[in-house]
């Protein structure tokens, strides 16, 4: 174990390296640039590759190319760069190609405010790409988590054969904190399923028969033909739709399976933390950095005799509706503090629809941290 003072952006990198990532393709963009800078130094040191591509989309493509050869690969971006990468995220979901994308969120639409933080891509993480594609996204709250959740993201991505987004924030990426880094050899690593049959019996990368199947994937350069196809609509049992043609049943099967393979492993990938939700009159549902404020507010509320609890969502997509329902079951009010105009709140409302529980939000879009005092004031208002 080593104790180090790290930027959040450096912690993302170290987490990726600890998880076995050996390829990074980047393009500088505030506030994610330090990830590219750190990786340009660290990747060659650990025997990996750093390549600076011509744009974010090119970076995501290079990452997919590297991943196809069996190397764990990561890229990172922010704001408009993430908008570009959406294209490739969809391609990787369809092709079932593992990769991790770190989004260090800035604020505002368009170019927005590059040097300020936000949580405005909560919905984009899930719905940003075309064609009913599922997404797994994890939101760290601290620099320590930036390390550990990047490890998790890489592992989930490999296990599920799907891209995973680490939903960071500028506030987190550019924040420094002391982190106890483990010996990287001791960090548990997950590898994608690989072929177990003889090469002559290999039927390709898409041999799923059941809706929750995650078929094995061959590395390019191995004796197995490794087709990675973003056409993404495959006949049940394997084969190649580009060659064989495709019927609507295949399309139905593929689109449903891309979701089901994730949902079937939901318990394994749903990370969350709850504090005093059992007897809480008011539950704060929060994610990312704003959850820290909610935790502080809970402490202050309890000191004043208000029974407050916190549900901190870590895996934000697939949205853990059942977790929200269980944590808020006894609450009179639910408050969702977030640095957008209510994106997570919308999902919480959806989860609690018909329960009669009041759901409200505290929403900042000026990049100022939501303070515990604000949450406390809102709590008193809601419990009146």
């Amino acid at each position, binding site marked *: 174990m*080593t104790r*180090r003072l790290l930027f959040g952006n450096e912690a993302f990198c*170290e987490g990726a*390296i*600890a998880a076995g990532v*050996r*390829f990074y*393709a980047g393009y500088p963009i505030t506030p994610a640039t330090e990830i590219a800078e750190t990786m340009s*130094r*660290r990747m*060659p*040191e*650990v*025997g*990996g*590759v750093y*390549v600076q*591509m*011509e*744009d974010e*989309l*090119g*970076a995501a*493509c*290079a990452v*997919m*190319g*590297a*991943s*196809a*050869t*069996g*190397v764990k*690969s990561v890229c990172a971006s922010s704001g408009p760069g993430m908008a570009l990468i959406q*294209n*490739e995220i969809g*391609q990787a979901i369809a*092709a079932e190609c593992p990769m991790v994308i770190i989004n260090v969120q800035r604020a505002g639409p368009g170019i927005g405010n590059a040097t300020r933080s936000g949580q405005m891509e909560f919905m984009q993480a899930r719905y940003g790409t075309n064609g009913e594609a599922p997404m797994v996204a994890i939101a760290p709250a601290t620099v320590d988590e930036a390390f550990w959740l990047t490890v998790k993201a890489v592992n989930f991505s490999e296990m599920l054969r799907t891209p995973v987004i680490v939903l960071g924030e500028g506030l987190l990426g550019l924040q420094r904190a002391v982190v106890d880094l483990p*010996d*990287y*050899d001791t960090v548990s690593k997950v590898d994608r399923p690989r072929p177990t049959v003889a090469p002559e019996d290999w039927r390709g990368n898409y041999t799923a028969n059941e809706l929750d199947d995650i078929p094995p994937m*061959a*590395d*390019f*350069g*191995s*004796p*197995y*033909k*490794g*087709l*990675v*196809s*973003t*056409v993404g609509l495959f006949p049940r049992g394997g084969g*190649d739709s*580009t*060659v*064989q*043609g495709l019927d609507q049943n295949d399309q139905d099967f593929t689109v449903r399976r891309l979701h089901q393979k994730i949902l079937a492993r939901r318990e394994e990938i749903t990370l969350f933390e709850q504090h005093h939700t059992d007897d809480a009159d008011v539950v704060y549902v929060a994610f990312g950095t704003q959850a820290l404020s909610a935790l502080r507010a809970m402490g202050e509320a309890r000191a004043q005799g208000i029974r407050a609890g916190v549900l901190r969502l870590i895996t934000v997509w697939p949205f853990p509706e059942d977790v929200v329902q269980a944590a808020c079951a006894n609450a009179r009010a639910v408050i969702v503090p977030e640095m957008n105009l209510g994106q997570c709140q919308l999902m919480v409302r959806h989860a609690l629809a018909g329960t009669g529980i009041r759901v409200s939000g505290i929403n900042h879009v000026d990049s100022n941290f939501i303070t515990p005092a604000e949450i406390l004031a809102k709590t008193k208002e809601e419990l009146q």
Partner: protein
Amino acid sequence: MTTTTQRPPAPQSQRRKQIATPMDEMVAKFADVPQGKSFRYCPGCGLGMAQSAIMRAFDRLQLDPAKIATAGGSGCYSPMAHYFKSSHIHGSHGRACAYATGMKLANPELTVLTLQGDGDCLSIGGNHFIHAARRNIDITVICFNNFGFGDTGGQFGPTTPKGSVTETSNAGMPEAAFDACKLAIGAGATFVARSTVAHPAHLTKMVSDAITHTGFSFVEVLQHCHVFWGKRNGMPLPMDMLNFFKKNAVRSTDTPEEDWFDIPTYAVDDKNVKFVLGVLHKEERNEFGSDYAALRTRAMASAQGRPADGH
């Protein structure tokens, strides 16, 4: 204007050498031909001939199909790699050079090719193409130029000859075209060649030379689309276009170098067009992957003895 000299036919002994492997064996080794399904090219399309030439080039170089990896995107050509035994990324439109960059850097053992159309390579993927050329990464880009977007039904693209009629230029293409080879040279490609599907032996040679070259190689393959471009520009049959290529092709070896780029390569006017075929540019320059590997060796050496977290 230069004159074309007729080449004498090769002696019988040399001709035999061309046939390295019997066709059946070659197909069994490199091709993954669909059982009971037809190829997804239009009848008479030139892509089948291009595919055959690429397979012959693999065979000539005695490549192991398991060590070949290709990348492509959307276009008429996109089923092609599915018919090979080698690994392939069928990715988003235009990004093949970026996929190939990742593939080659992550596994330098691979022989990496991109199979792309003119729209894919030069329009939507133009940026990835020029930057891969600039890096001089050891990949081979094969661009099937059919003078427009065929897969979407015959719209004009960046290489459509000026004045030609397409679905989006009914009054004649108003824009100027790229010369793909000139662009590749300008961007830093270290091997640039042009051939056509009407010259299969030449095409095979160009592809195999491109693969052999260490660094970024570019082969422009003029390939007829009689179905869309040909039909609307006075060449409705496959043979019309093959003859068009044959009649107007000159070998670079038979043409003074200063004329290579002076003759319009793409023109709808049969009288004012010449296709200069052959290796149009070749130079030795440091290859990106090797340079990066050297950098990495130094970085790993200096990091040795430090804890895994690099502190």
